[in-house]
């Protein structure tokens, strides 16, 4: 049996095809202006890899931006919030996990699940994009490096220069300000990652994290943010061997599998 999951984010979109209880194929692309286009492209990509078509999926679930339209267009049969999907996906890769910190391009969420991967509680950033991947993107651009380099660079830091400005957009100038005064990019990178972790902690506190804890979403790839979060929580987080960005789509596919029984 084949199940599909599509997750359209603010920056990247993913599709996962699940065969019974294993990831059969997956794709990740940069988003297109229209979420439905993103969904169609990324799903087609994941299917094509194994020579499949939409018809071969017995159930497909969409999540993320435009999840309802994607369903209306017939690419999926049901839509689910990203929150449930990340919870489910993370639980599948790490059954012992109870708290998931998911940080994407514009959203930061902390999700608590039970022993069956069902949602127990969650919080999500609301008014402000200050503690999201977008902050890291803007910052790395200002430092003239890629977002992938931001983590490694900060491990070379002599000291940590934290950002004081709340606004993601304005931290840009703050970085300029420090660079003008001769600060080293490594120290700034370390500060940026710590600032990021501090903002995420504000959300983490709201749910009261319970062990075991893990991270999903693109920012999970930043080792320095991860370390800072661990330090702030006083506990280690679990890692896994699946790309952290596909966890949402994976969760959607898992839910598709669950729902098939109910909906058919």
């Amino acid at each position, binding site marked *: 049996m084949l199940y599909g999951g599509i997750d359209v984010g603010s920056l990247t979109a993913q599709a996962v095809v699940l065969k019974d209880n294993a990831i059969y194929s997956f794709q990740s692309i940069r988003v297109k202006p229209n979420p439905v286009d993103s969904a169609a492209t990324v799903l087609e990509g994941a299917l094509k890899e194994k020579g499949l078509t939409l018809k071969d999926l017995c159930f497909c679930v969409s999540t993320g931006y435009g999840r309802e339209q994607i369903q209306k267009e017939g690419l999926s049969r049901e839509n*689910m*919030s*990203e*929150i*449930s999907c990340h919870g489910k996906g993370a639980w599948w890769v790490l059954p012992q996990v109870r708290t998931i910190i998911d940080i994407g391009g514009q959203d930061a969420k902390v999700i608590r699940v039970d022993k069956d991967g*069902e*949602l*127990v*509680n*969650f919080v*999500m950033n*609301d*008014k402000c994009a200050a503690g999201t991947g977008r902050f890291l993107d803007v910052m790395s651009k200002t430092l003239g490096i890629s977002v992938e380099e931001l983590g490694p660079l900060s491990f070379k830091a002599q000291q940590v220069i934290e950002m004081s400005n709340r606004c993601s957009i304005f931290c840009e100038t703050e970085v300029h300000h420090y660079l003008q005064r001769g600060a080293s990019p490594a120290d700034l990178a370390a500060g940026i990652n710590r600032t990021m972790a501090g903002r995420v902690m504000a959300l983490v506190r709201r749910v009261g994290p319970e062990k075991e804890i893990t991270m999903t979403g693109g920012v999970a790839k930043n080792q320095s943010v991860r370390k800072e979060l661990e330090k702030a929580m006083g506990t280690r987080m679990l890692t896994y061997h699946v790309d952290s960005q596909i966890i949402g789509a994976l969760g959607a596919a898992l839910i598709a599998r669950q729902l098939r029984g109910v909906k058919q």
Partner: protein
Amino acid sequence: MTVLNSLTGVIKNEYVQQARARGQKIVGYACLATPREVLDAAGLFPYRLKALGKGETEMADAYLSRFNCGFCRSCLQLGLDGTYDFLDGIIETNGCDHLRGMFENWQYAAPRSFFHYVRVPHLADADSMRWFVEEIELLIEALNEHFGADVNDYKLNKAIEIQDQIAAKMRRIYESRWGGEIKVSGHEIMSLMVAEGSLPAPDFVKLLDGFIGTLEDRKPINCRARLFMGGAATDEIGLIAELEQLGGLMVADSFCFGGRLFLREAVAKAPVHRLAEIYLNNLMCPRMFMNYPQRKAFILEMIEKAAVDGAVLFHNKFCDLHGIENVKLKMNLEEAGLPVLLLEKEYGAGADIGRLKTRVQAFLERLKR
């Protein structure tokens, strides 16, 4: 429904225009603690201030700050931009610190000739009741003097009677959802509540009768989960409608524009005392101190009767009263076995609706619905 839509879509509705045409004076008030009957008895048209989800506040923000509740900022904006120019007077209440600020700035920037402060106690003990009785008497005096009204017990009793009728009818519609099938959605109920403060009482009775007449023929609404909603004073019907589209229907609430409106228990017979009791004893609002247990009991009872599956508690950003109350309420509702979602929101149509919907959808998923 069109009458209702026109009432909840515009501030200066047709009843306002008619009242102006016939020379009836219109007096604005904001808080549920304002004894409307006194205004009715004075022959005035009590108009409850609302902002209908309008989120533009640039004029208000020159007075109030970013750190004030958006509902108050929006109301002040409408006061300053001329929308509320039809009001012949305003009654201030010390509902919360933000509301006080809203009134003060309004009176500072665009003064009215009639501006009366009804000081509502924050306790409901015997001393406070005496104080509130005096407040009502002072209000009567002020109205008599300024508008040449002649408020007497007879008129007050009449007005109380009409409001009792309204409450009974509202209750009937409200509780129609508790039996089984839901024929009236939560946002429709909210429309009625918002309409209530937008037209004279006798007209509202007619409107309610019309509405009740249609109940029979209505089709049941699909319902994925039965929700309780509570928190901030909000008249954002559109917001509730959007959230209900996700399938969770609001079947009970404790909004200020909502289920608290028709609580009217009182024992005193003399009208002024009776009014004081109606308004002070039944003010299930977090601004009241020492009676949280009462509020909790009121909400738990409603939740039980309405067979609710989960609760969504809102507060406007920077609202202290609901911001704190909701945390306590969440703890107590969860103790009672009910899942709860806390939502902090900015007042104003559509602001971040997508993000609110994601959270509500996840909450419904959590409820397994």
